[in-house]
């Protein structure tokens, strides 16, 4: 590869004035500046606003429909769980699959299950859970710290499926649940936790 004189890079990175360069190096700088200017031309495309807003206004499919689509879509799932978490995973799976649904318990549909969210946030004023089950809207599912020991809990009924989620502490700090069954990187550069809700009734 033909290396460019380092002073050309410095000039293009704003670390050196092009005036300090020889005419030959200035021509290289100018060549690259011109190349970028050519690429900076706007694409002759119609505005995307009508298309985007139409998609946004379209009603979001119901949970049942999304569940059906999720179930019908073939996918492979690989679980890699650290040994130290395997006990926690086993406990969560047991909780979700064997949770006794008593007569006084919540009314759970055939395709619904129970998810319990637990986090240790000592000193927090509020903790909410947000995720793909509530369109990432903060405020809709609050955790409670009844005995004020810093352990916040919420138990919710959700349609069976896999969901990404995070905790929102004091309304502004987004924290993944590191004890979750899985963690995945999302396209925004964050690490989301995964909870898998299995039907409570079989």
């Amino acid at each position, binding site marked *: *590869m*033909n*290396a*460019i004189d380092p002073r*050309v*890079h410095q000039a*293009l*990175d704003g670390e050196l004035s092009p005036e300090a360069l020889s005419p030959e190096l200035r021509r*290289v700088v100018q*060549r*690259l*500046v011109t*190349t*970028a200017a*050519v*690429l*900076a*031309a*706007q*694409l002759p*495309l119609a*505005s*995307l*606003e009508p*298309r*985007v*807003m139409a*998609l*946004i*206004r379209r009603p979001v499919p119901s949970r049942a429909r999304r569940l059906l689509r999720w179930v019908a879509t073939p996918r492979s799932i690989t679980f890699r769980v650290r040994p130290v978490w395997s006990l926690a995973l086993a406990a969560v799976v047991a909780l979700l699959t064997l949770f006794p649904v008593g007569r006084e318990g919540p009314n759970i549909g055939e395709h619904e299950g129970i998810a319990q969210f637990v986090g240790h946030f000592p000193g927090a004023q509020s903790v909410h859970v*947000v995720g793909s089950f509530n*369109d*990432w*809207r*903060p405020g809709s599912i609050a955790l409670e710290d009844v005995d004020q020991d810093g352990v916040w809990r919420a138990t919710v009924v959700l349609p069976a499926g896999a969901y990404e989620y*995070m905790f929102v502490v004091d309304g502004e700090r*987004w924290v993944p649940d590191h004890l979750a069954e899985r963690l995945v990187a999302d*396209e*925004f*550069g*964050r690490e989301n936790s995964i909870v898998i809700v299995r039907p409570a009734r079989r």
Partner: protein
Amino acid sequence: MDVTGASDAEVVARVLGGDREAFGLVVRRYEAGLLRFAGRMLGSRDAAADAVAESFVRAYRHLASCREPARLRTWLYRIVANRCKSHLARRPIADVSLDEAPPVADPTDTEVELERAEQLALVQRALVRLSPEKREAFLLKHVEGLSYEEMASVTGERIPTLKMRVHRAREALLRVLEGYE
């Protein structure tokens, strides 16, 4: 309420507060740059329009997770950049028509416009010969005018890595362009 002059943070707050239509301003404000970036990345106007439209819809649905609404532009570039890389992983640019609607000589075109179109075609051919990572780095730095700090936020890469990619992209572009001359 007219939100045309509102800051990004104010517009985001309005949308999250239930004013869905205010998101149209986000689209109008950033679509030109995002379309240009995606178009240069993918070498296809149609693919760019699809990628950017899908990215806006995803951004709307996940707007509550935008931690720094004041840096909405960088966040949007991140979503589009990821969408472009996913697209390229499925369909490498070698399989994509570089210019699906090449400039056609029109009697009303001036000589300057025709020359500009030829220049653009030449530079685009050189651009698509770069790896997606180098292409992305060059475009973000020199065409979209992002700082290295903003590029790090968009790509998730470290600044020295990005500087190296930009340097390599400059060298490769010059070499390819010289080869065409």
